[in-house]
């Protein structure tokens, strides 16, 4: 009956630990977020579908662009996020220079009454890749002005470190260019960035499907920010649910500690106590090269 007792104990332990497992908040700038999925809002035409998708994603933080007030749209997006209790992260999307980004950040702070800003300084319209020089300059200046800067950057570990040194509250390397859905092009770099960082690392841009988000978390990212993968999916609400589950799964897997990858199979069943082969003889061994041999 020993096994039964152990199984019961394990179940009891698992139940006791369940609340602790969910209490794994993401802390940014002293604020605790339960969800590690941060969402964008671009790429969807229907505000009601966007709202449903945001709720399905479980997100607690959502980024918005700052644009001219129009009679047609009014402040409907602001109201949508407010009534659902979703914290708003204004961004500087569309800015090509530190100077433009600073003015947009100030407008976001004034309009939305938050010091948080997702800083995007883009080099050109075709690649939408971050301009590292302008980005570091803008980060330093915004930090001086009391902003909590979420810096959207390339997957260059050295630039990520520079942004942290400049005082960024979070560093957000891209997996792939915005809107491409190519996933994580350089997982080695993302892992390096995460391993060194003292501030939260948020994988931003490039996510195409749920497995990409899970991989980002497994590589050590603290959160994932995505927009198009949900908003441009054929079924945004279902994809939002998938992303929510993927981020949770990836986080758990990262904490659980994966098994090392091996070259050859490793039986999970014991070899001791195996019955003799009916036809006699030894267990067949393949003639496969060992690691380092070819």
């Amino acid at each position, binding site marked *: 009956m020993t096994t039964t007792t152990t199984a019961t104990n394990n179940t009891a332990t698992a139940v006791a630990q369940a609340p602790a497992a969910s209490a794994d908040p993401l802390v940014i700038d002293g604020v605790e977020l339960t969800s590690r999925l941060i969402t964008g*809002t671009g790429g969807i035409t229907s505000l009601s579908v966007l709202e449903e998708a945001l709720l399905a994603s479980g997100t607690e933080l959502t980024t*918005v662009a700052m644009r001219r007030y129009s009679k047609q749209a009014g*402040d409907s997006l602001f109201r949508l996020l407010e009534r659902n209790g979703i914290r708003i992260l204004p961004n500087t*999307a569309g800015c090509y220079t530190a100077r433009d980004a600073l003015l947009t950040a100030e407008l976001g702070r004034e309009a939305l009454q938050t010091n948080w800003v997702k800083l995007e300084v883009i080099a050109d319209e075709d690649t939408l890749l971050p301009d590292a020089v302008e980005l570091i300059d803008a980060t330093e200046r915004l930090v001086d002005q009391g902003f909590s800067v979420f810096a959207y950057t390339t997957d260059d570990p050295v630039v990520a470190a520079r942004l942290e040194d400049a005082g960024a509250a979070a560093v957000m390397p891209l997996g792939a260019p915005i809107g491409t859905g190519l996933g994580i092009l350089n997982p080695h770099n993302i892992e390096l960035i995460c391993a060194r960082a003292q501030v939260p690392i948020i994988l931003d841009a490039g996510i195409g499907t749920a497995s990409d988000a899970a991989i980002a978390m497994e590589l050590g990212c603290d959160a994932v920010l995505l927009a198009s993968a949900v908003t441009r999916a054929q079924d945004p609400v279902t994809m939002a649910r998938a992303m929510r589950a993927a981020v949770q799964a990836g986080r758990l897997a990262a904490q659980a500690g994966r098994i090392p990858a091996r070259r050859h199979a490793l039986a999970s069943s014991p070899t001791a106590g195996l019955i003799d082969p009916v036809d006699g003889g030894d267990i067949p061994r393949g003639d496969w090269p060992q690691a380092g041999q070819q």
Partner: protein
Amino acid sequence: MDTTQEGPPVPTLTVNGAAHPLVDGASLLDLVAATIDRPLTADGTPEDGGRLGVAVALDSAVVPRSRWQDTRLAEGQTVEIITAMQGG
């Protein structure tokens, strides 16, 4: 504004990229309240008690909402009235 009419030129501002008639003595508060069609108190908050997701830049400098009432508009100025939109 009807620019085809004869008569002295009407003083204008540029508001969100478009020409806009300047009402004599108008404050930034008046302009914002008219643009968003929502009455505002003297400190720039909505009279309905809700929150205001709007910011203003006057000639490329942000003007805090607490200063909108005391900011008189002048001919030729450029005003940007900004809010949260989908993107990023």
